[in-house]
């Protein structure tokens, strides 16, 4: 901070001009294009916007997820290289909390109190981010696009500054359940999920049950659980054998990538070949391929194990090179983050960054913190997502639907059937979404 002041006399001059402009324009923040940039909020200077995040860059949740923040940063660098937002460049600081709430708590306070961020963006993890959501809202710090599918981010009364991003697991469960009911009528369905007492697995089961009840399929009980610890990745043969013994033909799984791979490997090793229906977070084909073929499970396994897996998506498929968004983000990745792989995590981070830029632009030239909250609530943004956002003044849910997809033996995905949207209430209608996908702006910046 001090170096910026000492090195730039123009900044001082700019501040004086800005002060004069405030007097002249009576402090109007949404003035016309001729107003100069002002330091309109914490973290906003005439030339920069500083935002921050906590991410698992190391530790158990790091594989895959550690790519998200560097991918977002790559997109911000691209925006900065093309003039930034209202001529401000975006400074993105992300800190490693190792998926540990104690660290999240401290590092979030560092971002707010010491780094003076305008907003917290894309903070990752349910137990981690839950430890700071009250704090951020008490401090009135925008807490945007949380990287977690917990429906706990949608609580406008208590947490007016917090916004979710990805579809919550109940929404996913409902739409996957509907697909199972329609496609596998008369068959026996079993569950393999993270838990017990884990919101990821529990919310998914809630959605699945909601869609499957009274349908033409039988649901096997009990639910088979795995605990997300390193020891668990040794194998889930017992769980698979139990489902096999019950004659389960379709396994619905809410699992993180390592355990999806373990499930596929364990079932194959006992000669059990049901249909696997796996939630989005656990089905990224490049990540699964790397785990299976890279020997992460102790043996090298064929990629073809992922062939036939049914999943869902709310973003374009990473393997769809004909999609203009994929082409755009892939080329930005190649230029600004060449060491990152091209997979679902990178796409996830880039789309979040794109959405943030949309919101920042809509918040006006000299935004306050509440301006960006209102911008998200009223923006009705369309972008790379194939489903709409649920944002309004009474709803802070992110994407509110998914489209079912099938993964081929070579890892290529194909969409199956229409896009559906729904809510996370029991019995809430699942409706077909007919909006047309948008195309990226010519320069790739909203």
């Amino acid at each position, binding site marked *: 901070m001090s170096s910026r002041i000492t090195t730039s006399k123009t900044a001082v001059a700019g501040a004086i001009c800005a002060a004069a402009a405030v007097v002249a324009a009576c402090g109007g923040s949404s003035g016309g294009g001729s107003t100069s940039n002002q330091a309109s909020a914490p973290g906003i200077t005439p030339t920069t916007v500083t935002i921050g995040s906590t991410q698992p860059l190391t530790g158990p949740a790091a594989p895959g997820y550690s790519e998200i923040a560097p991918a977002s940063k790559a997109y911000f660098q691209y925006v900065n290289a093309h003039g930034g937002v209202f001529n401000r460049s975006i400074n993105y600081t992300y800190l490693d909390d190792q998926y*540990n*709430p*104690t660290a999240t708590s401290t590092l979030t306070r560092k971002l707010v109190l010491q780094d003076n961020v305008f907003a917290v963006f894309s903070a990752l993890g349910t*137990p981690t981010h839950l430890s700071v959501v009250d704090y951020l809202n008490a401090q009135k710090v925008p807490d945007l696009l949380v990287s977690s599918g917990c429906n706990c981010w949608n609580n406008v009364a208590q947490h007016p500054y917090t916004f979710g991003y990805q579809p919550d697991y109940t929404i996913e469960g409902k739409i996957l359940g509907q697909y199972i009911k329609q496609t596998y009528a008369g068959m026996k369905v079993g569950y393999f999920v993270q838990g017990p007492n884990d919101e990821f697995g529990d919310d998914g089961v809630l959605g699945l049950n909601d869609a499957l009840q009274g349908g033409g399929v039988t649901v096997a009980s009990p639910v088979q659980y795995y605990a997300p610890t390193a020891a668990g990745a040794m194998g889930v043969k017992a769980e698979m054998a139990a489902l096999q013994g019950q004659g389960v033909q379709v396994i619905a799984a809410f699992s993180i990538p390592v355990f999806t791979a373990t499930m596929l490997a364990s079932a194959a090793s006992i000669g059990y070949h049901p249909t696997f229906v796996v939630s989005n977070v656990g089905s990224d084909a490049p990540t699964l391929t790397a785990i299976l073929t890279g020997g992460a499970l102790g043996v090298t396994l064929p990629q073809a194990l992922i062939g036939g897996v049914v999943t869902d998506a709310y973003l374009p498929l990473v393997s769809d090179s004909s999609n203009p968004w994929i082409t755009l983000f892939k080329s930005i990745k190649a230029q600004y983050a060449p060491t990152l792989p091209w997979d679902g995590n990178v796409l996830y981070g880039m789309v979040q960054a794109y959405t943030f830029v949309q919101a920042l632009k809509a918040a006006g030239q000299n935004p306050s913190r509440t301006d960006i909250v209102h911008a998200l609530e009223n923006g009705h943004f369309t972008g790379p997502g194939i489903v709409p956002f649920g944002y309004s003044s009474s709803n802070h849910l992110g994407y509110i639907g998914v489209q079912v997809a099938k993964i081929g033996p070579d890892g290529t995905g194909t969409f199956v059937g229409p896009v559906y949207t729904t809510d996370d209430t029991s019995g809430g209608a699942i409706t077909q979404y007919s909006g047309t996908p948008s195309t990226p702006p010519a320069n790739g910046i909203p």
Partner: protein
Amino acid sequence: MNTLARHGLFFVAAAAVLVVVTYQVDEFTNYNIAGVAIFVIAAAGLTVLVGINGQLSLGHGALMAVGAYTTSLLLKAQPQTPLIATLLAAVITTGVAGAIIGVAAARLRGPYLAGATLALAVGLPQIATHFGSLFGGNQGLPVAPLSPPAFLGSDFSSNRWLAWVALLAALITLFLLANLVRSATGRRMRLVHDDETAARLAGIDVERTQVLAFIISAACAGLAGSLLAYQLGITSPTGFNLQLSLQLLSAIVIGGLGSLSGAVWGSILLVILPLKISDLAGNLNLSSDVANNLPLAVYGAVLVIAMLAFPRGIQGALLRIVGLARRAIRTIGPRPQASSPS
């Protein structure tokens, strides 16, 4: 002056200095001062167990979880419970848990004790996951932040208040422990550490001494856990992982095993160091694989170098420096005026 009065005077002076400090620093520093104070409480308790009494515990993080969950459950049932009551409840529950574990621990030696307490560190937090409806599962239990009492004024910083509470708790803990280790009980604990057979011959009940050390140590961990719940605003199993237990152990070894001052130095280092190096990687232009792991590598390297350079810990190094200085003065001895400014 007797030990009690000397310690009392020292801690009152320390409290006065620290209060002044909390007015001079910013919000985030106050938050970190509270973090150090909480860590000091747990580390000082562990020092009594490991450094003084010679029992190893790899499971103190789990005992902190007992304290944190006691406080969180109490506040969930009765949100208006006063601070002092939640802290005491945490101390008592964790003390009882410590007594039970201590009885088992007193029968175990060396690697068996390490293994048993390791199992505690891994297993105990899983109880919270398993009985999710009571303990909030992986999401944990929220805890309302401490608000400063009304008489301090409405604009009194909540982080400064948190620092005051944690510092007061830490100073009281250190005061009590400092007196304990210099008492007859403390001497019995040391003797059990040095030579169990000799202790038995001297008529000391070895098991009783060991269980007592475990209770005291656990009670400290409970107090620290309770304060941590207030500081973090949430109590969840992931916050009390094995890493926390190992960090506590690292703190007392790096600080200087067996000395309470060592526990303080070690705590300061382990809380502040990760914060100082968290920005490090961001400022360099490195590939993300390297950048992500750089702070951890630096952290590890600093700890390894510290142990190589000061095998007796920071406190040991400080004592050595003081010793060398004294010898230097003695050498110059006959001319004391040499030390006065010329």
